[in-house]
């Protein structure tokens, strides 16, 4: 009775008693959710257009952030460093296409997956060699990202909202909107969607795989940089960021590997749910630190019911 009460009733009573605190928790969750969603989007794009499960997406976040901060420390002005980092991500995309993807075309999926693990290890080594492995501070204020916070007072309580988090959310939303416009309205975007539908047919109408792959990996690089800046502003820049990027895996399972909408919705859902669960159930009942595994368990449960994920692409089959 006692335990049932603490699981089913007490948490909700707490929420109702302190709605301002609930808002704070949900907001914190939302911010991480937005970043999970961004990373997952990078995965989805690459998976859709090349059927490659890109294990390296997480390390690309670290690598991009590291390059940005590293360049700044070498004396490059902050905004120029951003542009140079984008250039580095583009060169990386071209290199990956030439050196890894092109020779491995037509190989089984698992081989390409292994290749992306190789890319991960390579980027870890490269990043560490050039920029060093120690924890760095993200150049937040140098990039004109506001660092103050706003105090809101809903329901007679306090909610503190960090301005850098607001910037991250706004930036992420803008990035996603741009990406959706690109995918749905442009010639290249149409080709990327076509490639996701039918590889052979895309080849047959003259869509050039190598061009598309470079573009897709470059977009993944841009997303990685944006995520890297946002996470770096909260937690500093180090290889530990990669672990956070791995949170994108349950997001993908939940949202479906091929769905842009799925990645966004699942990212937000996991971000918010894991935070709420941690605060109201995890800490009082399970001793805390549930955020480390909550997303994976949730994804596992969803997989039991819907193996294609919540938003897995509807398979159109005519009979």
């Amino acid at each position, binding site marked *: 009775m006692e335990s049932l009460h603490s699981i089913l009733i007490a948490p909700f009573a707490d929420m109702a008693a302190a709605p301002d605190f609930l808002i704070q928790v949900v907001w914190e969750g939302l911010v991480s959710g937005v970043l999970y969603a961004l990373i997952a989007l990078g995965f989805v794009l690459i998976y859709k257009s090349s059927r490659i499960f890109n294990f390296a997406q997480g390390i690309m976040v670290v690598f991009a952030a590291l390059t940005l901060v590293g360049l700044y420390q070498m004396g490059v002005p902050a905004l120029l460093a951003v542009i140079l980092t984008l250039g580095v991500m583009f060169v990386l995309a071209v290199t990956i296409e030439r050196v890894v993807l092109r020779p491995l075309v037509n190989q089984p999926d698992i081989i390409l997956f292994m290749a992306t693990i190789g890319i991960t290890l390579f980027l870890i080594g490269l990043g560490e060699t050039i920029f060093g492995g120690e924890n760095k501070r993200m150049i937040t204020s140098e990039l004109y990202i506001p660092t103050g916070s706003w105090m809101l007072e809903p329901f007679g309580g306090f909610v503190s909202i960090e301005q850098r988090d607001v910037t991250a959310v706004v930036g992420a939303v803008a990035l996603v909107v741009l990406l959706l416009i690109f995918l749905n309205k442009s010639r290249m975007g149409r080709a990327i969607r076509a490639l996701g539908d039918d590889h052979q047919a895309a080849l047959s109408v003259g*869509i050039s795989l190598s061009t598309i792959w470079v573009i897709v990996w470059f977009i993944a690089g841009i997303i990685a940089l944006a995520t890297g800046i946002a996470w770096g502003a909260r937690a500093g820049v180090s290889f530990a960021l990669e672990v956070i990027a791995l949170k994108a895996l349950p997001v993908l399972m939940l949202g479906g590997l091929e769905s842009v909408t799925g990645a966004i919705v699942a990212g937000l859902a996991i971000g918010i749910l894991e935070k709420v669960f941690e605060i109201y159930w995890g800490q009082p009942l399970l001793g805390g630190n549930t955020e480390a595994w909550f997303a994976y368990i949730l994804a596992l449960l969803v997989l039991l019911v819907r193996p294609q994920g919540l938003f897995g692409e509807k398979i159109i089959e005519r009979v």
Partner: protein
Amino acid sequence: MSRATAPVPDPTEPILSVNNIEVIYDHVILVLKGVSLSVPRGGITAILGANGAGKTTTLKAISNLLHAERGEVTKGTILFEGGQVQSLSPNDLVRRGCIQVMEGRHCFGHLTVEDNLMTGAFTRRDGNAAIRDDLELVYTYFPRLRERRGSQAGYTSGGEQQMTAIGRALMSRPKMILLDEPSMGLAPQLVEEIFEIVKKLNDEQGVSFLLAEQNTNVALRYAKYGYILESGRVVLDGEASALRENDDVKEFYLGVGGEGRKSFRDVKHYKRRKRWLA
């Protein structure tokens, strides 16, 4: 760009000539054992034969989609407008004006019919206005597609998908279309409709066609010349009208020859026709 570097076309030479090609899949499976054929500029030529005869492989060897299936042209040459094209990617070949419509239609199921058509214009660099004009042109040939332009291609009927696939190829402004099994899975009336459009495109737009068909009857009515393939070799070729009258073609492919049942002992076996120097 690449169009400018292509050799100047000579109207009398065939737009496509395939000389004694051999195709091997996965380094071991020999599929084509010396196929030669040619398509005149503005012609409709048919490759006929049963399942597994090598029709699709021949088309894929020309369009170079073979590469994506680990197939390789190991011998012989393929000339498109006088230039060798074996080493070109499908993308380059589409730019030069040779495009394949694959067997089974292969529409992009989640894209709308119009988006499907627009993907055909991927290789074009001549501006949106020209592409829009061609879209209109495709809609005049396939009025049904205009009605379905906003539907997801995966939900359209088989006939509409075949039209979408052909229309999509047209959007690349091809000089030649390699059409694989356009009749597959379609009602006889629709097959007729599709072939009528092929003929119209040939007459009005000057597009040359090389089509692979199992439906010998229809194919020989619309094509001007035909090749019959059996297990990776050309066993018979000739003007379509001559092939239609050939007793063996009637017997095996049109199903109208001879009276009553015939013993297989009487069946004539064709030997390989040597065309090494073609």
